[in-house]
């Protein structure tokens, strides 16, 4: 019997007037790799931030198996944000150690776990190097090691293979599979269906802030009567994708008004006849 590690109940999240997520409910079970699939601006990152406790739901709750809200029990989570979030003037090991210490983990324990996974990722030799000169792949691997160093119950990965070369992406996927085989629980955000199909036991398709489908790849194909996942995805997300709302989250009203004041209008000849929309 699978054990539920995280429960998301009726969660909505709004940024001003924009509703990023609407009444989302789902459970993350122990030992499964859950893929969050959706286009840019679908709400994947917002959902992951709610799961990591960085955002608080506008309504609803995100709790761990013991009923504790995630923001009170972050030591059980390992997070790899899209940007990796490494300090360039620290070495890879210093980055990892810093996070481990924040989790209250002893340096020796952290090193033992890190070195074990670093061997798999071919990163052991690079742990003493400053991350400033790292490639995108090396940064991603270091961020993964950092998220694993304290032995989290749930690993949250936001587009972990974005921008990686083929070899690095394969290595990351192989590590995720290895963690799954060892019984790890992973939430994996991506907009590549093929990748989700390879790595995930369960795929959740998010579109414009709603969950459109939730099931194993086989179940998704069966439910949508599709031949492949791409076809299934298209049939589930026919509505036009909304734009990303980063701008709305980060810019004040006055700043936006001021910026627009000094922005010349694009001539209608460039926009075409549809410019009146």
């Amino acid at each position, binding site marked *: 019997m699978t054990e539920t590690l995280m429960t998301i109940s009726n969660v909505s999240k709004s940024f001003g007037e924009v509703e990023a997520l609407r009444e989302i409910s789902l459970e993350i079970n122990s030992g499964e790799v859950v893929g969050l699939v959706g286009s840019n601006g679908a709400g994947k990152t917002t959902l992951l931030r709610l799961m990591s406790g960085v955002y608080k739901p506008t309504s609803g709750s995100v709790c761990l198996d013991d009923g504790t809200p995630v923001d009170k029990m972050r030591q059980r989570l390992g997070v790899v*944000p899209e*940007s990796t979030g490494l300090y360039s003037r620290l070495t890879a090991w210093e980055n990892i150690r810093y996070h481990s210490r924040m989790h209250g983990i002893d340096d020796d324990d952290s090193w033992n776990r890190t070195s074990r996974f670093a061997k798999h990722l071919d990163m052991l030799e690079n742990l003493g190097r400053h991350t400033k000169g790292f490639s995108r792949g090396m940064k991603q691997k270091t961020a993964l090691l950092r998220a694993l160093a304290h032995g989290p119950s749930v690993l949250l990965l936001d587009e972990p293979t974005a921008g990686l070369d083929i070899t690095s992406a394969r290595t990351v996927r192989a590590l995720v599979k290895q963690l799954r085989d060892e019984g790890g629980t992973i939430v994996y955000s991506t907009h590549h269906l093929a990748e989700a199909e390879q790595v995930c036991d369960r795929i959740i398709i998010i579109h414009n802030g709603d969950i459109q489908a939730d099931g194993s790849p086989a179940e998704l194909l069966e439910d949508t009567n599709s031949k492949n996942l791409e076809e299934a995805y298209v049939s589930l997300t026919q509505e036009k994708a909304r734009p990303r709302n980063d701008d709305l989250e980060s*810019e004040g009203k006055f700043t936006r008004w001021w910026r627009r004041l000094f922005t010349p209008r694009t001539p209608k000849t460039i926009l075409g006849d549809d410019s009146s929309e």
Partner: protein
Amino acid sequence: MSNGSFNRVKSIAKKEVIEFTRDWRTIIAIIVIPILMFPLLFIMFPLLLESEAAELNSIVVDVVIQSEETPDVLIEEFNTSTMNILEENLSNVSPLSEPGDDLERLRSLSVDAILRVEQRDDVWYYAILHISTSESSNEARSRIIEGLIVWENNETQRIISEQGLDVNSTLNPVRWDGDVSQGDVATEGEQAGMVLSLFIPLVLAVWTFSSAIQPSIDMTAGERERGTLEALLSLPCTRNELLLGKWLGVATITGVGVILQIFGLLFAIGYLATSSIIGIPDLSLEAILLIVISIMLFAVMVVALELALAMRSHSVKEAGSILGPAIILIIFPALFTQVINLDGVENFWFAVPVVNVLLALRELLMDRVIVEHIAIWFGTSLLYALMAAYYAAKQFGREDIVTSLS
């Protein structure tokens, strides 16, 4: 604060300091510049001025004296190796200060200065023509004036003697008796404190504010822009622990800068003291302790406010354009504080933000420990520091601080 909380705050602060010191530009800005600033200002600058003055003294200037009959005494005064004198007849100009045909000679620097002298009845009239934008012309004018002063003194004494009067008693009918410095009952240390109180508070305030700008931005808007903030916010630390850790980091970096600057200042004062230009201020232990407390309260307020404003900003650029001009909030009250008369100063000044700490520093540097004033500035400074910390906590508690513009 629990043990775990303390360890997290310590880890954040330690990481911030380590990361900051690994940037050589920061080391120059925070350590080298503060150490060198005052010694350069107080030792090198006067030495430079001295050498420039010596250089000016040695230059040879071309001076034209226009007169019908130049007094011999004057010619003797000007007869030095560093002045080329050319005597000319005085053309018909009135008044003597009217450049007339000599305008071009001066503007083209073919002569450095022209002295016109004319005797009318018993009085000598004169004018010096020069061009003030030329160093050598200014130097020529200074030397002419020196010679004229000697000649005028000689003339004055001669005329007084001719009238049968005693020169000394006629020229100095009112005199100081004794040593002038004995009349000031303030000790050398007190005088030094008075002088230092005019600029040390200003320097401390401006340096504390300005040196905290860069780390504050780097640790807040910088973290967000580099994408490191999200990973940090997903760690098991509260926003207040994060704020406290970062505050400690900025305060440590700023504190090191201020301490080094004070060392540089004390070294420069020590050097000047050997030249008898300024003494070492007399400060009681309680005054020193109160100075430290006032600076610490000021630092709490300033660093918390800067962290809050930087965290509120959407980017490093925006944070820079807010915190850079915000230094006016320190400079203006700091300059204003310098002109407030400390004798009989009204109590309310010790409650005005920024002014209160600066006035406190001024008083304490003069070793004036006034309980009433201390109570007011301590209470209000504590209040402002708490308000700034509360505002910073509010900014750090905002959910949208995670949003990266990168």
